């Protein structure tokens, strides 16, 4: 049976992990390669690196990080942040990434997704959607530029459009919940999961193991992405997996 995935996500700036990781047992917790290795050993099902570097030099450092990680870690690796052209995708894949996650440039030019899916295969195109509840009406709006800019698009119709353009997966982040530790926006997650046939990765708001469980069951997500719950060692991936297995969720045991 296909297992639901647990994906730790690391924010990387100028080649370093930001938001600091609370591992005491790592020599250099700011080193993304070490952090990825740590999660690999812990039983993560995939790793996600989000590049939040602004500078050109930092970009080069990021690709180096991806390269070093993929030389050591034999599990799926998704990279996101600043993917704007086919060349960015090519560079990411050549560095050893399996998938790229695209947000702002998909909104600016939806055909980019169509072309990228045709050229690189839908298996490597993840469309990231930052969603925020609309004020005074039902539904959610798409945001870009790291959540700073409303795109004037409805999340559900955007998700469907991206599916038809060749997205292989949707990485769905609730901006209302992100950083709150109150749990995923389950209504949002479920609505998108029901609207599309491609897998949906839930993100934003995890604070407890129960939140992971809810995301995969009530929220109908195919995978859960989380950062601080693992980074700050509130829980290990092993604990999360044991908890979910006990609750009857199909999970790849460690």
């Amino acid at each position, binding site marked *: *049976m*296909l*297992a*639901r*995935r647990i994906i730790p996500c690391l924010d990387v700036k100028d080649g370093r992990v930001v938001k600091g990781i609370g591992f005491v047992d790592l020599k250099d917790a700011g080193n993304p390669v070490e952090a990825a290795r740590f999660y*690999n050993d812990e039983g993560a*099902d995939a790793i996600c690196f989000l590049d939040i570097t602004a500078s050109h030099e930092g970009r080069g450092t990021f690709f180096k990080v991806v390269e070093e990680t*993929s*030389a*050591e870690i*034999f*599990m*799926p690796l998704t990279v996101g942040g600043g993917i704007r052209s086919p060349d960015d995708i090519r560079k990411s*894949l*050549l*560095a*050893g990434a*399996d998938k790229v996650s695209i947000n702002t440039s998909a909104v600016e030019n939806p055909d980019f997704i169509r072309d990228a899916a*045709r*050229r*690189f*295969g*839908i*298996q*490597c195109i993840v469309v990231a959607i930052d969603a925020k509840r609309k004020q005074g009406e039902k539904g959610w709006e798409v945001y870009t530029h790291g959540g700073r800019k409303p795109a004037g698009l409805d999340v559900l119709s955007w998700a469907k459009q991206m599916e038809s353009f060749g997205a*292989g*997966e949707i990485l769905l982040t609730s901006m209302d919940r992100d950083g709150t530790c109150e749990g995923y926006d389950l209504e949002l997650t479920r609505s998108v999961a029901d609207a599309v*046939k*491609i*897998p949906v990765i839930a993100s934003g708001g995890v604070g407890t193991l129960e939140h992971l469980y809810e995301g995969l069951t009530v929220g109908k997500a*195919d*995978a859960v992405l989380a950062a601080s719950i693992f980074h700050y060692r509130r829980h290990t991936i092993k604990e999360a997996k044991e908890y979910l297995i006990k609750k009857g969720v199909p999970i*790849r045991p460690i």
Partner: protein
Amino acid sequence: MIAIIDYGMGNLRSVHNAFKKAGREAVITSDREAVSRASHLVLPGVGAFSECMDHLRSTGLIAPILEGIQRGKPFLGICLGFQLLFSKSEEFGEHQGLDVISGEVKKFPDGKLKVPHIGWNQVRFTGSCPVFKGIPSDAYFYFDHSYYAIPEKEGVTASWTDYGIKFTSSVWRDNLFACQFHPEKSQTSGLKLLENFGGLT
């Protein structure tokens, strides 16, 4: 020497890295001569079926690949490199494959399950295929695909995987092995498989 065949499609670096980690030396090559000389052949591949076939044709690599298989060189096809071995695929219209294994490649049926089939799924062995040595049946491997292969003769199926339907997740015939899943992305089990493959003679 293990030759990882580079025909311009797919993430060859991770396959190369994984062989290295598994203690097997391999080279990435697009040179016909090098492919002919190699002791083991690996055909990876991601993307669309027809595009992969086009690239294989234009690089002139089909002949040395088929010759290698015929001569009984250990051969490993991965993901699209697995699907390409079949007679035809229905991805973006009907396209001819290498026809090393009779059968066809079809899209997962519309239904309740998500397509692509992405993630870790269990692989149940049908027999004692040598590349699975030391790996327990029902081990998890990493998959990422929307199309699946249906061999004409069930005898070539080396493993089954269940995703709404039971499908052939790998095939094995003499020294030819090919899998839909990605051993290079499947941690310990995947590395063991690559190590086993490298040890075939």
